[in-house]
């Protein structure tokens, strides 16, 4: 992009037009299958406009069309880059084989190289896209927040000791080993390298030694190794930020002065503790604030996700103000606020947070790799064979020795030991990435005259780890037959037994008088339940035991799955609701024999909740196409927050008042919502089939020709036996003649004898209450 102001003056327009053309051609090249030809013609047009405008100047006519690029330059460039990143991501997945051999990160770096090369060819200045400020402030936080929010807490905490060992001691070892040996090598070599002092070397070591979370995430995501290894490497990459920050600042400060004393060393250690714990503290504080705020958002559901994002970002920025570890602040914030926020916010907000985080982090990651490629092309390089190759070699060697040595010590304390295979993967998975590059970029030129050489070496190491290690780790994992991630979803059995074992082991520890792992975990949980949850979670939900919450989530998931799979014919026998609903069934035999009178059997609140949830999840599908013009409120979802209770009660009362033989003209009873729902959905496809537990009782019977529009709702209670009829037809209307029309749920009772009831689902179980609710629901 031209760095000239280009304020719409006629001079730079032709060149600018050409550049636009180049960029668009580039886009087009990668978008060939998607046919981006239109954009090219647009740019030609713009260029032409520019030309005509130039000509128009002499005539001094009123400019009908003007081009003013400088006005929107920055947003335009940013959007163009982001668009490029996303298109690249799209493109890779269109080429199936490529994406399975080469990890995405490599491809993106290559693209970056190409783009950088192209821009350089056009002899434009490559903008400093990987500006460290831009990177640390805007590109890095989304990725880290995504990682922190979705961090699997249990494995992380269980392995915390191991992770900390690797992160702190491993990184320290790496930094000193690499720095020290490089210094030695520099001294030995007889070139101008001897000028490099020990401190710059150590600084370089500390920059290059940190395992990078972005790179690790990008590569490990695709290889699906077992959870333990994943959390070890990934946790290490997150927690070593504190060490890196301290070492970097320490060495940078003292490189200027030229010497380090013991006092500085001690201060460094203290500084490390402050940085790490301070970061976590900031994060936890903001996390609690976010959780507390979410307690009160029940009336403004629309902005709920924003709180999660804003508080986390503030945590990061606040930590950075004090030079604390921003990454640890982000992780702590995300991990702390998650359980409380999830208990408080609506289902939709939860989905929003999840997808927004994923989207942001995905785009960030893509951009980072592309920029890495661009910056490589652009940067001034000073290649020094010895330095660069030795740094690569030393990185590998240091990592291997570090991992092996630490594992030896760690295995003495672990119950599940780390095998050689595990150690190999941990060592091999130590990828370096953009953080190292940015830190190197931050070095001031005047203090470090060998900055260019450092940058070259850093880039080489990054390229090596990402390309070589990234590409080969997948086949190696296969070759070594490393245990893969278990795809099995967590079952309720597992959940119960996990809790059971927790209690058991806590009890045994208490008997032994041993204040171990479980003891403290139990204490924390108890404290959490007693005080914290009450404070941070909306009142009724705070008392729900974890097991029940888990169970509800499972039920909901299964109901949704059932809905999505069409749920038509048979309920799979594993659906527990039917089992327990059959338990309720025996209570209500009288209901089926009294067609004239609707007796509403008593439903336990829990059962009702579940039914409502199932129905809600089904009905949400039809609501999807409702227009949401109003930015301030979402379409009031009648099934949330007790609104449903009111509606249901109202409806029930209305039904009770109705008498038999009530026929209502078709148009009248439809509430606006119903009309919308009907209009929004295709009448042909609108069938209530997907209701999992419920039986659509709505069989509409077109009356005699006198009132062709009248619609009668047949009450299923009239049916004596549970025979299934017309299984998969959903709601159909039956003319006396037998033709059918798409349903129009009306609201009447009809007690004619030969009412045939249409059932969606074959199971005879679903009780009268469900039918009741369904009729009622049809009204809303």
């Amino acid at each position, binding site marked *: 992009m031209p760095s000239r102001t280009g304020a719409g003056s006629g001079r730079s327009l032709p060149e600018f037009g050409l550049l636009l053309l180049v960029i668009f051609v580039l886009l087009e090249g990668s978008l060939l299958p998607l046919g981006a030809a239109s954009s090219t013609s647009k740019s030609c047009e713009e260029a032409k406009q520019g030309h005509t405008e130039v000509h128009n100047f002499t005539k001094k006519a009123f400019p009908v069309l003007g081009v003013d690029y400088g006005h929107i330059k920055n947003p335009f460039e940013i959007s163009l880059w982001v668009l490029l990143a996303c298109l690249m991501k799209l493109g890779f997945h269109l080429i199936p084989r490529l994406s399975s051999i080469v990890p995405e990160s490599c491809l993106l770096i290559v693209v970056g190289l190409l783009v950088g090369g192209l821009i350089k060819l056009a002899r434009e200045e490559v903008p400093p896209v990987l500006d460290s400020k831009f990177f640390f402030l805007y590109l890095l936080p989304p990725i880290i927040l995504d990682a922190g929010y979705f961090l699997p807490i249990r494995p992380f905490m269980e392995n915390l000791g191991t992770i900390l060992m690797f992160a702190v001691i491993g990184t320290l070892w790496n930094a000193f080993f690499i720095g020290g040996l490089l210094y030695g090598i520099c001294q030995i070599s007889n070139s101008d390298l001897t000028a490099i002092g020990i401190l710059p070397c150590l600084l370089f070591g500390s920059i290059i030694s940190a395992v990078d979370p972005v790179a690790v995430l990008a590569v490990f995501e695709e290889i699906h190794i077992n959870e333990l290894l994943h959390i070890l490497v990934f946790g290490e990459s997150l927690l070593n930020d504190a060490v890196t920050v301290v070492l970097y600042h320490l060495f940078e400060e003292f490189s200027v002065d030229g010497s380090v004393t013991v006092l500085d060393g001690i201060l460094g250690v203290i500084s490390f503790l402050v940085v790490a714990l301070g970061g976590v503290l900031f994060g936890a504080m903001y996390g609690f604030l976010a959780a507390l705020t979410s307690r009160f958002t029940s009336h403004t559901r629309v902005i709920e996700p924003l709180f999660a994002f804003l508080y986390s970002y503030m945590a990061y920025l606040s930590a950075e103000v004090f030079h604390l570890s921003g990454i640890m602040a982000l992780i702590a914030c995300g991990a702390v606020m998650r359980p409380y926020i999830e208990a408080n916010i609506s289902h939709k907000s939860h989905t929003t947070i999840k997808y927004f985080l994923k989207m942001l982090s995905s785009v960030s990651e893509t951009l980072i790799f592309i920029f890495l490629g661009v910056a490589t092309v652009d940067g001034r390089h000073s290649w020094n064979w010895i330095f660069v190759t030795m740094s690569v070699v030393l990185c590998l060697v240091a990592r291997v020795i570090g991992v092996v040595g630490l594992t030896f010590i760690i295995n003495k304390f672990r119950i599940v030991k780390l095998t050689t295979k595990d150690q190999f993967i941990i060592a091999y998975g130590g990828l370096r990435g953009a953080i190292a590059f940015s830190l190197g970029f931050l070095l001031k030129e005047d203090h470090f005259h060998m900055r260019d050489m450092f940058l070259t070496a850093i880039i080489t190491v990054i390229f090596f780890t990402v390309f070589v290690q990234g590409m080969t780790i997948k086949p190696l994992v296969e070759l070594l037959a490393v245990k893969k991630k278990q795809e099995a979803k967590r079952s309720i*059995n597992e959940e*119960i037994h996990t809790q059971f074992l927790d209690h058991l082991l806590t009890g045994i520890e208490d*008997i032994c008088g041993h204040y171990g792992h479980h003891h403290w975990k139990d204490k924390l949980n108890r404290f959490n339940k007693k005080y914290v949850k009450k404070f941070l979670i909306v009142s009724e939900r705070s008392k729900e*035991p974890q097991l029940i919450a888990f169970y509800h989530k499972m039920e909901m998931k299964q109901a949704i799955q059932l809905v999505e799979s069409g749920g038509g014919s048979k309920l799979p026998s*594993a659906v527990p609701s039917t089992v327990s609903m059959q338990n309720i069934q025996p209570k209500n035999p009288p209901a089926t024999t009294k067609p004239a009178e609707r007796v509403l059997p008593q439903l336990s609140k829990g059962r009702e909740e579940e039914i409502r949830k199932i129905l809600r999840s089904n009905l949400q599908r039809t609501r999807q196409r409702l227009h949401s013009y109003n930015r301030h409120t979402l379409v009031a979802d009648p099934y949330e927050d007790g609104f449903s209770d009111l509606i249901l009660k109202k409806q029930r009362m209305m039904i009770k008042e109705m008498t038999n033989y009530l026929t209502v003209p078709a148009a009248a009873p439809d509430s606006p919502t119903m009309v919308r729902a009907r209009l929004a959905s295709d009448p042909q496809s609108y069938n209530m089939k997907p209701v999992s537990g419920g039986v659509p009782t709505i069989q509409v019977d077109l009356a005699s020709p006198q009132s062709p529009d009248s619609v009668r709702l047949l009450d299923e209670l009239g049916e004596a036996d549970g025979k299934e009829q017309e299984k998969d037809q959903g709601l159909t209307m039956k003319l006396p003649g037998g033709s059918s029309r798409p349903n129009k749920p009306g609201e009447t009772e009809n007690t004619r004898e030969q009412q045939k009831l249409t059932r969606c689902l074959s199971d005879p179980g679903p009780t009268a209450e469900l039918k009741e609710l369904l009729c009622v629901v049809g009204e809303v």
Partner: protein
Amino acid sequence: MGSRASTLLREEEIEEIKKETGFSHSQITRLYSRFTSLDKGENGTLSREDFQRIPELAINPLGDRIINAFFPEGEDQVNFRGFMRTLAHFRPIEDNEKNKNPTASEPLNSRSNKLLFAFRLYDLDRDDKISRDELLQVLRMMVGVNISDEQLGSIADRTIQEADTNGDSCISFQEFIKASLVEKLCETCF
């Protein structure tokens, strides 16, 4: 505690316990001091009340069952031997033990014994099956009093449904191992 020298552990006893349970010398002595501190009656055995005096155990949902696990069938007192025998289930499995004595009976902390111990905590009537009622009892203990019976019932039903492969609506030991991945959990916890 000098007057209690007579009740101190003798070397031979330590050796025997070591052989039986696999604990090390220092572990045994430490656990013995714990045993004596719990034994308020100073008669060399523990009763149920002694266990119940431990405050954290009182609030543990499974407290009663764990205590029961220490006492063999029908007895009310447990001596140090029995105490150690039960605790031996919780010793981590060490690889170097595997090859030592192939002819000896299976060590107390072998995987299957651990699993059997966990299973027995559910299965009170020792019929080698976890019935719906037994499961309900455990769930009720873990979940508290606010949840309705019906909800708990449906959770229990679902649990049994997931685990039950032979259709007898009870969970046998084999099904227990497979369904709850207890094996995997035992590895990490025990």
